[in-house]
C-alpha cells in the first residue's frame, strides 16, 4: 500500500474544500468553480436508511455552510425506499432532486427509463465541478458498476458492498479450527462447531426469501458458471452448477445453522452472531460497525474477518453497490450536483471507511494508513476489504424485475432449508421466472 496520503493530508484536503470557496471566488468570479454559486437553493435528498446515509445526514450542516444550499434529506428503509423512488420517478414528478440507488437492484430499471441525468456531462463542466473532485480516485470497478450499458453514467459511485466472512474468534479457537479458505472447509468446520445443546451453531445466514438470494449467489459465484444469466441473458438458475450451489446453501443452513433460520434476515442473523451464538456469518461489510459496538454486541473485539472462501471452480465474493443519482426532472441539477460532489467526496468516503459504515467507492481512503491505524477496526478488517475488492463480482443479475426474481428464487431456496429437493425447487422457480424475464427483456 502506498504510504503517500496520511490522515492529516486527507483532513487537510477536507479542510481545503471547506476553505476553498472564498479564495476561488476572489480569483475568478466569472467561470471558475464556486461552492456558493447555488447559494439559497433548496434540494431534496432521498436516501436508503443505513449507516452511510446517517453519516451524510449528520454532517449535512458542513455542506449547507459551505454552499449555502439548504438540504432536506431523509432516509427510509430500503424496501420502501426502492418502491417509493421508482413510483415517484414513474409518475414523472419525483419529489427529490438527489436519490440514493442500490445498483444491484435498480440499475437497469433506472437506466432504461432514463430517470437520472448523465453525470459525465455535469462533470465535464469545469465551472460547476470542484477542482478537488478527483474522479480518477474512484475505483474502476465502482465506476463500471455505475455506468449503464449505453455508456451513460447516471449515478456517482458511493459504496461497494462485498460479502465477507465474519467469524467468532473465540469459538474457532476453542476447537482449534483454522479460518476456512474453501467452501468444503467452511462446511466441515461449521459442522464441528455446531452444538445445539449449548445453542451454539457453526453458521448463521440469511434464509428469508428475497434476502437469501445474495447469500446463495456467494456460493454460485464459486462455480464454473458464476452468474444467473448466460451470455445471451437467458436465465440459467437451474443448471447443474446452480443446483450444486443450492445444495451447498441447503446443507450449510440446514445442518449447521440455528433452527428458524429460514425466516432470518440480516437482523436476526446479526442478533444471533452478536450474542456469540454462531461461529460464521457471511454477509455485507457494513455489519462490522454494530458487531464491534461494545454497547450492543457481546462479541466486540472477538470478531474475525476473512474473504469469502474459495469455491470449487472460482474464487469470488458477491459485490453490490450504491450510487447517487440526480433526477432528470430536477430543476436544481447544479445544486444537486454539488451535493453529489460533497457526499461522494474524499472526506465522507474516509468517514465511511473509518467508522466501519462500509467500503467506500474511492480508493484514497484505503491508502490512508494513519486513519486506518487509528480506526477502532482491526487491520484484518481493512485487509479483508482490499482483498475482497480484487475478487469481487456482481452478486445479482442486472435485470429490471430484480425484486420479483429475488422473491421467486428466494422462496425456492427457503423451501430447501425445510428439506425440499434443490433441483426441483430451482427448476420450478426458474420456469416461473423465465417468462417474466423474457417479457422484461423484450420491452428493452
Amino acid at each position: 500500500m502506498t504510504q503517500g496520503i496520511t490522515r492529516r493530508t486527507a483532513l487537510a484536503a477536507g479542510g481545503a474544500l471547506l476553505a476553498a470557496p472564498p479564495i476561488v471566488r476572489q480569483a475568478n468570479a466569472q467561470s471558475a468553480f464556486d461552492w456558493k454559486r447555488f447559494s439559497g437553493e433548496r434540494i431534496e435528498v432521498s436516501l436508503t436508511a443505513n449507516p452511510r446515509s446517517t453519516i451524510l445526514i449528520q454532517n449535512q450542516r458542513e455542506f449547507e455552510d459551505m454552499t449555502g444550499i439548504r438540504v432536506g434529506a431523509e432516509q427510509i428503509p430500503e424496501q420502501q425506499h426502492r418502491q417509493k423512488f421508482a413510483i415517484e420517478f414513474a409518475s414523472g414528478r419525483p419529489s427529490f432532486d438527489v436519490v440514493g440507488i442500490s445498483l444491484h437492484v435498480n440499475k437497469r430499471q433506472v437506466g432504461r427509463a432514463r430517470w437520472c441525468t448523465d453525470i459525465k456531462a455535469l462533470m465535464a463542466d469545469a465551472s460547476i465541478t470542484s477542482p478537488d473532485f478527483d474522479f480518477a480516485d474512484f475505483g474502476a470497478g465502482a465506476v463500471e458498476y455505475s455506468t449503464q450499458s449505453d455508456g451513460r453514467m447516471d449515478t456517482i459511485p458511493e459504496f461497494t458492498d462485498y460479502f465477507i466472512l465474519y467469524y467468532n474468534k473465540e469459538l474457532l479457537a476453542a476447537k482449534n479450527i483454522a479460518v476456512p479458505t474453501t467452501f468444503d472447509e467452511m462446511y466441515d468446520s461449521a459442522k464441528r462447531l455446531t452444538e445445539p445443546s449449548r445453542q451454539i451453531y457453526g453458521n448463521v445466514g440469511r434464509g428469508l426469501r428475497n434476502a437469501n438470494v445474495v447469500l446463495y449467489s456467494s456460493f454460485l459465484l464459486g462455480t464454473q458458471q458464476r452468474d444467473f444469466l448466460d451470455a445471451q441473458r437467458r436465465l440459467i438458475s437451474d443448471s447443474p452448477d446452480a443446483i450444486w450451489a443450492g445444495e451447498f446453501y441447503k446443507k450449510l443452513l440446514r445442518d449447521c445453522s440455528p433452527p428458524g433460520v429460514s425466516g432470518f434476515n440480516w437482523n436476526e442473523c446479526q442478533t444471533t452472531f452478536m450474542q456469540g451464538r454462531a461461529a460464521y456469518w457471511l454477509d455485507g461489510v457494513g455489519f462490522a460497525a454494530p458487531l464491534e459496538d461494545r454497547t450492543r454486541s457481546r462479541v466486540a473485539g472477538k470478531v474475525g474477518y476473512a474473504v469469502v472462501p474459495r469455491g470449487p471452480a472460482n474464487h469470488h465474493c458477491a459485490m453490490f453497490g450504491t450510487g447517487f443519482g440526480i433526477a432528470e426532472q430536477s430543476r436544481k441539477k447544479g445544486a444537486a450536483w454539488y451535493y453529489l460532489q460533497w457526499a461522494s467526496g474524499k472526506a465522507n468516503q474516509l468517514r465511511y471507511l473509518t467508522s466501519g459504515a462500509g467500503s467506500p467507492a474511492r480508493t484514497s481512503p484505503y491508502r490512508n494508513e494513519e486513519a486506518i491505524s487509528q480506526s477502532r477496526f482491526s487491520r484484518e478488517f481493512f485487509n479483508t476489504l482490499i482483498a475482497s475488492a480484487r475478487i469481487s463480482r456482481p452478486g445479482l443479475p442486472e435485470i429490471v424485475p430484480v425484486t420479483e426474481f429475488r422473491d421467486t428464487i428466494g422462496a425456492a431456496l427457503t423451501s430447501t432449508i425445510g428439506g425440499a429437493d434443490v433441483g426441483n425447487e430451482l427448476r420450478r422457480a426458474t420456469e416461473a421466472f423465465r417468462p417474466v424475464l423474457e417479457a422484461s427483456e423484450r420491452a428493452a
Partner: protein
Amino acid sequence: MRKVKRIVGNIGFGFGVLMLVSPAILVFLWMLSLSLKNELDNTDYPPIFIPNPPVWDNFAAVFERNDFVKYAINSVIVSFSATGLAILLGVPAGYGIAKMRATKAAVVILIARITPGLSYLIPLFLLFQWIGLTGTVVPIIITHLVITVPIVVWIMMGFFEGLPAELEEAALVDGATIWQAFRHVAMPLAKPGITVATILAFIFSWNNFIFAMVLAGRESRTLPVAVNNMLTFEQISWGPLSAAALLVTAPVLVLTLLAQKQIVAGLTAGGVKGG
C-alpha cells in the same frame, strides 16, 4: 364441603381471568421493559425483565434520530381531520339513512366497510400523483376517510334507529324543520353514539399504517410509518424501536383507559340492538 368447592371454584375462576388478561399485560410490560434497557440487556438470554437501572437513552434516541415530533404532529392532524370530517359527514348521513330506511345506501357503506384498504390504494395513489398532491398530508386525510366514514355512518345508523321517533315527530308537528329536529332532538339523544364513533374512528385512523406508508413523503409521514422506519438497515436496535412503539401506541391506550366506560357501553349497546 360445599364451601371448599366454592373456594376452589373461585380460585379457578380467578386463575381463568388472570389467563385472559395476562397476554395483554405480558406484551405491554415487555414493550416497556425493552424500552428501558440498554441493547446488551435487551438481547440477553435468559431475558432480563426488570430494567436495572432503567435507562432513558432509548427515548432520547427516538427523538434524536427521527423527526418524531413532526410525525406526531402529522398524526394528530391526520387523525383529527379524518375523524372530524367523518363525524361532520357521517352523523347526518347515518341519520338520513336511518330515517329513510335506505337499504341500498346502507349496502354501499357495508361494501366500503368490507373492502380491504389495500385495494383503494392503487387508484387513489395514481389519482394523487396526477393532481400533484403527494407529499402533503391532504391525501392521507382523504384516504383515512375511507376508514373513518364507514365506521361513523354504521355506528350512527344503529343509534338513530334505536331512538324513539315520537320526540322528533312531536317537534315536527310543532313546526320544526327536519334539520332542527335532527340538530336539537335526535343529536343530543345520540350523544353516546357520537362519542363512541369518534373514539373508534380516531383510534383506527391513528393506527392506520398502509395508506401513509405508500402515500406519505418526508414531510407528511405519520407515526406508525415512522416507527416502521426505525428498522434501519444494518443496525438493529430493540430499545429505541420499543421506545418508539410505546410512544406511538400510548396515546390510544390512554384514550382507551379514559373512555373505556363509553366504549364498552357504546359497543355493547349496539350489540343489544343486533339481536
